[in-house]
């Protein structure tokens, strides 16, 4: 027996290819949407990986530092260092803002890190060019995605920084590239007030008799000094000693230091389950709509193609073709259309994924799932056409 579907597709290949390409672009968009979600998840994981931490110590009752604001005094890391099982602990700040370079500005996540070598928690793990931050002020390591180059000067708030190193795939959970600067600078940037505000605050403090007591010289100066520094950080990153289980190290810190501590697994849950959950639902919604639109297109095309063949189908039935054979022919055509569409879609997605501003991760598993989905959708979409074909009366072939 020959393949009726195959022959029909070969015969009117133009129709199939054009429809297949249209469907394929739609499938490409669908695969890309899935890739955007995977990219977000991967960004989150990379963010956690790159922080080099086993534990995140944050403000009590917060989901910080990525999902909620968290602030801690910048000296708690000292006491944490003394806890059992803690190998290294380092302060870190995160702040998303615009970074100026010449005439342009780039949205970036400013990470304040303690200057030091790689391996220190919070430091970028590897550089693709240049060196790590070694000085306590005015040096920066930027992700290549910012477009900054080695030796360039960038401006964060009022201070200028020299780009001394470049990294890759260091992004926030929102996909913004990271710029690392020394912790002290970052603390300042986070709470920096403009000159008017500072002058106004000074005036107000001086006008408050509680701070400006005539009998207590030096009090006002001390208060003013404490107002102009920022002793806060967002989190303390902790590396545990080899042989220790992170959760066991975390528990005493939670209990004795009255701080929230998250392990890697918990942090991942927060990022994926909370931070990007709404975005994931948004993408899921898109996927559903795209699936419905694809199904409608396939159904419509196959139905139209079938209606155009009513006479031939009547003849086929008259000469003894079984319903199963006719249904099979239509279903195979729908699947053929799906196959063309999938191939085109996969190629298109692979082609345009790197051009997207945020990371698009095309996973083989998603592609296979998409392939199966396309086949199910095409099979369902052909039901309408099959019903129409089975209703054709062989007597129609004989006519009046």
């Amino acid at each position: 027996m020959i393949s009726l579907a195959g022959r029909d597709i070969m015969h009117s290949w133009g129709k199939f290819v054009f429809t297949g390409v249209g469907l394929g672009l739609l499938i490409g968009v669908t695969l890309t949407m899935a890739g955007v979600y995977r990219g977000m998840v991967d960004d989150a994981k990379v963010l956690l990986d790159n922080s080099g931490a086993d534990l995140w110590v944050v403000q009590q009752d917060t989901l910080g530092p990525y999902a909620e604001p968290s602030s801690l005094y910048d000296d708690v890391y000292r006491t944490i260092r003394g806890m059992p099982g803690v190998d290294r602990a380092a302060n870190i700040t995160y702040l998303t803002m615009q970074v100026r370079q010449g005439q342009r500005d780039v949205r970036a996540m400013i990470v304040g890190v303690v200057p030091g070598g790689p391996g220190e928690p919070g430091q970028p793990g590897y550089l693709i060019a240049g060196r790590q931050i070694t000085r306590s002020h005015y040096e920066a390591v930027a992700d290549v995605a910012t477009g900054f180059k080695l030796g360039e000067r960038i401006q964060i708030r009022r201070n200028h920084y020299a780009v001394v190193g470049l990294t890759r795939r260091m992004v926030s959970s929102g996909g913004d590239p990271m710029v690392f600067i020394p912790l002290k600078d970052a603390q300042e940037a986070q709470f920096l007030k403009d000159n008017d505000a500072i002058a106004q605050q000074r005036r107000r403090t001086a006008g408050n008799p509680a701070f400006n007591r005539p009998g207590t010289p030096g009090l006002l100066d001390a208060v003013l000094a404490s107002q102009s520094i920022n002793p806060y950080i967002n989190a303390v990153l902790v590396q545990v000693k080899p042989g220790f289980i992170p959760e066991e190290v975390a528990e005493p810190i939670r209990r004795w230091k009255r701080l929230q501590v998250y392990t890697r697994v918990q942090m991942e849950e927060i990022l994926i389950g909370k931070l990007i959950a709404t975005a994931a639902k948004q993408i899921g919604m898109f996927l559903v709509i795209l699936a419905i639109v694809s199904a409608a297109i396939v159904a419509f095309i196959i139905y139209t193609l079938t209606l155009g063949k009513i006479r031939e189908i009547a003849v086929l039935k008259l000469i003894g073709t079984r319903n199963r054979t006719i249904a099979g022919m239509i279903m195979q055509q729908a699947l053929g259309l799906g196959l063309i569409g999938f191939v085109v879609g996969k190629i298109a997605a692979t082609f345009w994924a790197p051009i997207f501003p945020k990371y698009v991760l095309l996973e083989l598993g998603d592609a296979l799932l998409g392939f199966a989905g396309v086949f199910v959708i095409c099979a369902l979409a052909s039901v309408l056409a099959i019903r129409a074909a089975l209703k054709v009366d062989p007597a129609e072939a004989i006519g009046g």
Partner: protein
Amino acid sequence: MADMLEKGIRIEGLRKRYGKGDTALDALKGVDMQVAPGETVGLIGPSGSGKSTLLKCLGAVIEPTAGRMTLGEEVIYDDGWKIPDLRALRRDKIGFVFQAPYLIPFLDVTDNVALLPMLAGHPNAESRKRALELLEALDVAHRAKAMPSQLSGGEQQRVSIARALVNRPPVILADEPTAPLDSERALAVIRILNQMARQYETAIIVVTHDEKIIPTFKRIYHIRDGKTQEEAGEGRAFE
């Protein structure tokens, strides 16, 4: 002749009523007809007299209301179908030729013909060989690889005759097979049908309005008001 008629088609008292109640319409009111193997008979009658209805009953695509139809020894209808698989009956025992050729546009000439033996479960190679033999006999073998849309009207009609014959059915039903053809081509088609009827021992019924071909039949059934009347035809030409 009586012995031969036993092998051909025999229709007795065939009735067909369309619809029910007030709107019921008796299209066939007791039709009798016999066609021997190797014989080509004409079936003529005014419009609306029931020609197509009779052909559809014989072709097992609509169910008669009463009567009896036999194909050779086999009773196919006796106040009800006597054959469980009408599709297989159509495929193996009945060849159809229509007013228009109705070839399958996406199959080439050979496969249009070979499709029937393939549907009956014969291997592709054997089916194509049988198809080619018939195309040869019908003088269209040189177009065997062409698509139907690339053939002339007469060639298409010959291909459709090859398709009707390929499973060696004992019966061929032709509904106005010459209507779209000019008189020369029409006569050629009838000549081929006659020749095939003799060569393959097939009983052929040709429904026609076509004045040009009516004189070619030796026997003609005239259908009027749902009943048939046998007449001797002129049986001209093709000797």
